């Protein structure tokens, strides 16, 4: 359905208590900070957040965690030099953590967006992260069965959008954005600029408009 262009607070109104929210970014690169700020203002809680990291410093995802809105983090690398907000919550038992290898995180969301029911994955075989999971030997190699991660809402940051919702990204800030956009019921993209349909090169569009519900323009 048609992509709408709106303010950040109105956009994140799509998030409900208890939702699974996919949050783009690898560290601060591609982190949709203004959307997260709006989500904090909006007030939805009891969230499961899927993101590569568990917040840096005191802004963005870290601020959402500090506000007590997140019940569970699903991420590949929570522990960082500046992840004190998460570290405190985790050590005091105030947040659940599911650690997922980074490639599984990406591929499980890709599977959600692509209609795959589950897939046999080479990563993590024989490690604690595959314990209790179904395995299968295929062509002499052992694989672990992994299931999709579906999001209710995805909050991502791209570089430029056209009015239809087609997105291009900038350098390694692309990271999880294109995958998360496919894996959520509702995708909200924060972009630096919205241009007219036809102003983006159709060969260079990374996320086609079909995956984008709402655009929020945040000049930077």
């Amino acid at each position, binding site marked *: 359905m048609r992509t709408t262009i709106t303010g950040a607070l109105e956009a994140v109104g799509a998030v409900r208590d208890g939702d699974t929210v996919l949050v783009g970014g690898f560290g601060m690169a591609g982190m949709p900070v203004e959307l997260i700020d709006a989500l904090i203002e909006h007030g939805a809680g009891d969230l499961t957040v899927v993101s590569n990291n568990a917040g840096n410093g005191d802004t963005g995802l870290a601020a959402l965690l500090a506000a007590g809105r997140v019940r569970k983090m699903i991420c590949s690398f929570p522990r960082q030099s500046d992840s004190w907000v998460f570290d405190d919550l985790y050590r005091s038992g105030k947040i659940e953590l599911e650690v997922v290898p980074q490639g599984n995180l990406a591929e499980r969301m890709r599977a959600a967006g*692509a209609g795959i029911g589950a897939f046999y994955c080479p990563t993590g075989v024989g490690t604690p992260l595959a314990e209790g999971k179904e395995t299968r030997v295929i062509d002499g190699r052992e694989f672990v069965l992994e299931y999709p991660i579906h999001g209710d809402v995805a909050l991502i940051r791209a570089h430029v959008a056209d009015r239809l919702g087609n997105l291009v990204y900038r350098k390694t800030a692309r990271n999880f954005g294109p995958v998360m956009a496919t894996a959520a019921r509702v995708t909200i993209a924060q972009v630096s600029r919205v241009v007219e*349909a*036809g102003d983006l090169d*159709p060969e260079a569009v990374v996320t086609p408009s079909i995956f984008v519900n709402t655009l929020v323009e945040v000049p930077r």
Partner: protein
Amino acid sequence: MTALDKEALARRVASDIPAGAYVNLGIGQPTAIARFLDPASGVVLHTENGMLGMGEVVPDAEADQDLTNAGKQPVSELPGAAYFHHADSFAMMRGGHLDVCVMGAFQVSAGGDLANWHTGAPDAIPAVGGAMDLAAGAKEVWVMMTLFAKDGTPKLVPACTYPLTGKACVTRVYTDVATFLIEPSGVRVVDTFGISADELTSRIEVPLDIRVL
């Protein structure tokens, strides 16, 4: 009112496509629907060979060999188009992102089963293309066909006798003489063209809800 010709049937289907919908139009007759979509409606056409924002079929004189629809006809590109490869294109279909696809059919069952890829004839060369992916993936699968085969047998049937393309996937059937909704409670007739309710119910073995007529 008389039965719809091909053009009128395409127009009938087009009128039901919601504004802003992402739509895949199957090879053959459904392709004609594109001509009757209001450009202002913001409907975006998907073609499974890797494009959103497909325009209409263009004359051979304007043909670009690198820009075709799924039926390999030359088409145009609209502003806001995007190209992608086959795995991404089918991920889009199979992941449930297309609002509507419209396909032709040999048979549709009362439960929404679709048969449109193989007649089952022993000497036929099987060819499925993207039909099974569309049947499994689109949010709504609409069929566009004549209600009766050339020999007069109905193509809306209690159970398909041809090999299936997908199970319980069709939600609407647009035909030259009537439009049907396939609902959990049964098959409902929305409108008819040049056929009486009596003739319709007598020639179709599927129980029909014709209250609105």
